[in-house]
């Protein structure tokens, strides 16, 4: 009758307690399962591909192109890339594929990304599978405790992602050389790298953490006109964060696959000039 009626305490979901007695876990008549299914298939395909490529430790360099999976390359067992992104930070004890060292960062960035979290919570965890569709779990604590509380480190992965994007930009610049490291070349690979780096930057910049850092944390935009403009720009990109996440995921895999094809001798890089 008055405000503030105490909610009844009893555990369970939509089919229990004092809620309307409806046995079905949901009454949706549309194809609500389609989006999570497609998401799951897409992410799964990428995981399979990238695992194979990351551990293969081969065909990742075809001058002047270096696969984004292996850049920067930080162990002694890296292939020599002339003026390329390799630095022997880890020395000789690193035995397995050097891709593993660096892939942690983009992987961590994407794993803790607010969009990807939504995508895999829905499609892999079914938490929830779709809106107003009951989830199968008995208990739910969200991101309040270990390990999911670690999602809060997204911002640090963002800082690393900036560095990685910087290196990939460097790689793209180097791709304007030819196979003999002379400048003034451009091949199909250069174009692939260009598209990829634009999408990588757009995805990285459109990150929610970035939006917060450039201006979102401010209370008075009017006192910081430049940061306000930056925040608005990032905000506009941010509305496309999901699309950029997928586009850049696809483009980075494509760039890698292109290097693989050229390095393994399937075809030669077509040259524009």
């Amino acid at each position, binding site marked *: 009758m008055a405000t503030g009626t105490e909610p009844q305490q009893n555990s369970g979901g939509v089919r229990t307690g*004092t809620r309307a007695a409806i046995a079905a876990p949901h009454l949706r008549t549309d194809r609500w399962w389609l989006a999570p299914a497609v998401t799951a298939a897409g992410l799964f395909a990428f995981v399979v591909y990238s695992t194979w490529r990351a551990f293969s430790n081969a065909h990742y360099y075809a001058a002047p192109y270096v696969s984004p999976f292996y850049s920067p390359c930080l162990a002694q067992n890296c292939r020599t890339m002339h003026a390329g992104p390799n630095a022997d930070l880890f020395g000789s004890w690193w035995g397995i594929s050097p891709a593993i060292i660096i892939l942690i960062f983009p992987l961590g960035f994407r794993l803790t990304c607010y969009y990807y979290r*939504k995508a895999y919570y829905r499609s892999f965890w079914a938490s929830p599978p779709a809106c107003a569709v009951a989830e199968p779990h008995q208990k739910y604590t969200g991101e309040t405790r270990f390990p999911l509380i670690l999602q809060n480190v997204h911002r640090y992965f963002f800082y690393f992602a900036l560095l990685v994007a910087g290196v990939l930009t460097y790689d793209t610049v180097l791709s304007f050389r030819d196979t003999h490291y002379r400048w003034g070349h451009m091949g199909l690979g250069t174009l692939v790298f260009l598209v990829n780096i634009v999408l990588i930057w757009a995805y990285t910049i459109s990150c929610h953490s970035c939006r917060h850092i450039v201006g979102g944390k401010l209370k008075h935009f009017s006192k910081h006109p430049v940061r306000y403009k930056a925040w608005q720009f990032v905000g506009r990109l941010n509305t496309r964060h999901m699309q950029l996440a997928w586009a850049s995921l696809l483009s980075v895999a494509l760039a890698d696959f292109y290097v693989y094809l050229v390095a393994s001798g399937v075809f030669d890089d077509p040259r524009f000039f």
Partner: protein
Amino acid sequence: MSSYEARFKVWRGDVEGGGLQDFTVEVHDGEVVLDIIHRLQATQTPDLAVRWNCKAGKCGSCSAEINGRPRLMCMTRMSVFTREETITVTPLRTFPVIRDLVTDVGFNYQKAREVPAFVPPAGLGPGQYRMMQEDVDRSQEFRKCIECFLCQDTCHVVRDHEENKTAFAGPRFLMRVAELDMHPLDAAAESGLDRGRSAQDDHGLGYCNITKCCTEVCPEGIRITDNALIPMKERAVDRKYDPLVWLGSKIRRRTT
């Protein structure tokens, strides 16, 4: 003007139990689901309980689940369904049912009371407030909320886990915290209240796994997740998980 007979299933009952009841009812051009419910009341079931008010999507009273999706009945046009489709209308399934389509939404009023109110700035009297449009834009978006509680209904944190209702305020009231935290003149900080921290510590922000259903169902199109919940999570990170901030506070503590 054309009309046809539509098939409806409407949940009827109360806390003791109930079920979906079949109806066949006339539908005219341009009508919305709430019109059909009213026609049922006037012609077939005069005691069918339903909440409604403005019938223009402005008050947020007629929230229900239509074909399993949380929606406002007054803003769901019949033309979005085919004539052959059977349309199912049930009460909100996250709150205790009272009767038919009416639920006890007291949970939301309880949560509203748990969010500390706006703290007026000291030293500014009525008429002396100066705020720039760009500074109020963000909070204004959140103040478009009509409190239909569809976001609270669809959020799986409480929908599927009754036990979380104590700890979790729900999207609507986390957004209220964000609104106040972004209010250019809110003086909560000066009074010793850290809204960013309290969003996580007192209102259960950590339960949100940003799966965006609240944004999907919002009839006002408020971007709850992107503009309120995630920024609040980032603000909580500022306070609690930023190593630079953490280091800074350690050093400061040591030197003072």
